[in-house]
């Protein structure tokens, strides 16, 4: 059965390097107390930054989501909601560039503050920079998820609230907060897990060892020190940390629909009284999210595109990135479909056997596996395995594509799963009575009905893969360059104009992918 094959493949890719890491672990030389206290310090910092990022993201997302849900009718609202979905698809490295432009020592905010008399420019390196970047990504994500939940509130509740003359405070207490509270733990653990595994942000904005996370330290132990035993130690630490957190609370994150469609905006009794306050909140949130994007666009305009496209390395990087994205996204979709189709088949039986029930929960969990086993850990494991066999250079692109595919899998599953389940509920009996099954069903029913979801999932997976730095950074070499790696090189050698140009191209690809997927009409045929 395809689902079992997909599940085994995922486990093989994720578990083999783990076993290899554990097998190598006993051979570890003594690590030294200095190093261990460094490891302890970065473990604390990893948790600290993730905790603060989560708190800040949610604390800012709640008022923003309330304001957006309450002001359901103003022009441009749909655009703002779509803008909130963008950070997820934007490459972290590109965002980091934009954030430095806005919040850096020479950035917009510093300049503004200095002209208004504040003497000291902002220092973005270290914890503040990491927090700004994480809040940028996760406040947007959390706000969008919260708006989607708030819009599920039945319109009768608002009519009732109007009849009972609720104030905004009553509305919050009796209507909004119960909804927010029910989804908050899931969103919080999702954000926390994403922040723990954050790589590019910490690599560039961390500013050295004092603000390093385990994820970055794993990369450094392999690429800076070429010290596999240390990488093994760090990877195992990161793994147990993530697994522990997943057991504690990450499971809740599995139910969150990441690209949740936004429900019907409701006309609400508290819309008018809060209008001014809400507009202020929305404007503040919007400027926080839009300014880095604008900064990238502005510095991109001045970029020397002629010089960029005249470099053969650019075309190689572009080709590699596109090929990787295409492969990773296809693989991710195939895996997701196999898992979902298998679940559908098993669940259709009235009384699935105990073994089948375990298989289904295994398949559901495997989608979130990547949250427990971060890409860098899988990559590091394979890096160590392959270097021992001397196949690293040859297999690097394959591993990076597979790791990228796994990385996108939770998001792909969250987009496809509701569509596939809904489609199954509507069509299963009819298809069974008509004898539509297998390829015929796939061609006539599943593909056309799910085309938009597939396209969206494909686009998101491809965008995530194009923008990924983590796995590619481990395996990068002169023969294997991706666009984000090239961007990192340009940033490193301080060719900031060229970097801006590559950033624009990178962001352009990601946005174009999502945009063209969204153009597909629901139920339209994919041609």
């Amino acid at each position, binding site marked *: 059965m395809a689902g079992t094959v997909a599940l085994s493949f995922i486990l093989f890719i994720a578990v083999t390097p783990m076993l290899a890491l554990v097998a190598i672990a006993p051979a570890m030389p003594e690590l030294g107390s200095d190093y261990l206290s460094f490891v302890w310090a970065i473990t604390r910092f990893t948790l600290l930054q993730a905790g603060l990022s989560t708190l800040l993201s949610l604390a800012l997302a709640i008022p923003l989501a309330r304001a957006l849900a309450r002001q359901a009718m103003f022009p441009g609202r749909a655009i703002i909601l779509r803008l909130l979905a963008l950070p997820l698809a934007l490459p972290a490295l590109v965002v980091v560039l934009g954030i430095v432009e806005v919040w850096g020592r020479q950035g917009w905010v510093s300049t503004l503050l200095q002209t208004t008399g504040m003497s000291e420019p902002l220092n973005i390196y270290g914890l503040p920079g990491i927090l700004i970047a994480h809040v940028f990504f996760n406040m947007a994500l959390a706000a969008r998820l919260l708006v989607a939940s708030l819009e599920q509130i039945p319109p009768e509740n608002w009519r009732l609230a109007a009849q009972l003359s609720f104030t905004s405070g009553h509305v919050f207490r009796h209507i909004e907060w119960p909804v927010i509270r029910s989804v908050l733990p899931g969103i919080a653990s999702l954000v926390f897990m994403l922040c723990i595994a954050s790589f590019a942000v910490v690599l560039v904005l961390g500013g050295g060892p004092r603000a390093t996370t385990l994820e970055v330290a794993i990369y450094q132990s392999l690429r800076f020190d070429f010290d596999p035993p240390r990488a093994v130690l760090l990877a195992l630490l990161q793994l147990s940390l993530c697994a522990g957190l997943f057991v504690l609370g990450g499971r809740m994150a599995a139910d969150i629909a990441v690209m949740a469609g936004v429900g019907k905006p409701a006309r609400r009794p508290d819309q008018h009284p809060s209008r001014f306050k809400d507009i202020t909140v929305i404007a503040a949130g919007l400027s926080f999210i839009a300014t880095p994007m604008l900064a990238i666009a502005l510095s991109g305009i001045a970029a020397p595109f002629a010089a960029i496209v005249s470099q053969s390395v650019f075309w190689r990087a572009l080709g590699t990135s596109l090929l990787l994205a295409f492969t990773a996204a296809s693989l991710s979709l195939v895996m997701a479909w196999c898992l979902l189709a298998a679940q559908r088949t098993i669940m259709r039986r009235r009384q699935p056997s105990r073994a089948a029930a375990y298989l289904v929960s295994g398949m559901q969990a495997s989608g979130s596996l990547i949250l427990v086993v971060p890409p860098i850990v899988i990559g590091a494991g394979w890096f160590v395995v392959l270097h021992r066999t001397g196949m690293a250079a040859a297999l690097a692109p394959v591993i990076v594509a597979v790791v990228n595919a796994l990385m996108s899998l939770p998001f792909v599953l969250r987009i496809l799963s509701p569509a596939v389940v809904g489609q199954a509920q509507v069509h299963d009996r*009819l298809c*069974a*009575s*008509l*004898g*539509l099954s297998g390829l015929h069903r796939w061609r*006539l029913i599943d593909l056309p*009905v799910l085309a938009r979801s597939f396209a969206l999932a494909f686009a998101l997976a491809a965008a995530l893969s194009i923008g990924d730095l983590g796995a590619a950074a481990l395996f990068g070499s002169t023969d294997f360059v991706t666009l984000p790696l090239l961007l990192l090189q340009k940033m490193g050698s301080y060719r900031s104009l060229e970097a801006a140009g590559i950033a624009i191209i990178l962001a352009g690809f990601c946005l174009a992918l999502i945009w063209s997927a969204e153009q597909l009409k629901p*139920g339209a045929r994919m041609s």
Partner: protein
Amino acid sequence: MTGSAIKLADLDFCYPGGEPMHFSTTFEAGSFTGLIGPSGSGKTTLINLIAGFEEPSSGSVLFDGIDATATQPADRPVTMVFQDNNLFAHLDVFTNVALGISPALDLSDDDKTSIAGALEETGLSGLEKRLPRELSGGQRQRVAIARALVRNRPVLLLDEPFAALGPALRRDMLRLVSTIHKQRGMTVILVSHDPADVKFAAGHAAFLDAGQVVANRPVDALFSASDIPGLQGYLGT
């Protein structure tokens, strides 16, 4: 085409956490039976068991004496019209009907003629290219019936297909089903929450209560009977 006789032989069935159901009855070949009974009495479960969407824990379903308990829904001599979601929203009327003949849409000229005939019979000629969302509720159910016609199976199961339609439209649809039944002679079972529908269209009526077929008689006999426990209470007479 003549209808099949359907025999439910000591069918036991139970939803997880639900009350056990036990069905034992016969539907004569070519009969038109209306199933009535309170909500949760097992009407839909019964026809789902006949269609093969549910598996009984024991007992068997026989069509003309042949045991079909283990047969897949598509391979039973049955076609079913549901209350809703009878059509694929992205496919046009013609294709929705054609799927009743061939899941691969391999259509011979004869097939096309029979599709045209079924559309004619259900009053849908000229609407072949329409998508379901461009049809009225009644027209959509007509498409489902047209597909049942081209499938040409000996048993037609109707699971409250007209519940969402207004009274006049519902009569029209029942009249259509009646006509088809008279012309083709298949066995028809109609689930309905309105006894008047059953009186209007069916020749037989079966009363279900608490997961059992309490009585299955000719319509007049059933509605005038006084020996059926629970029936008076249900009808309010």
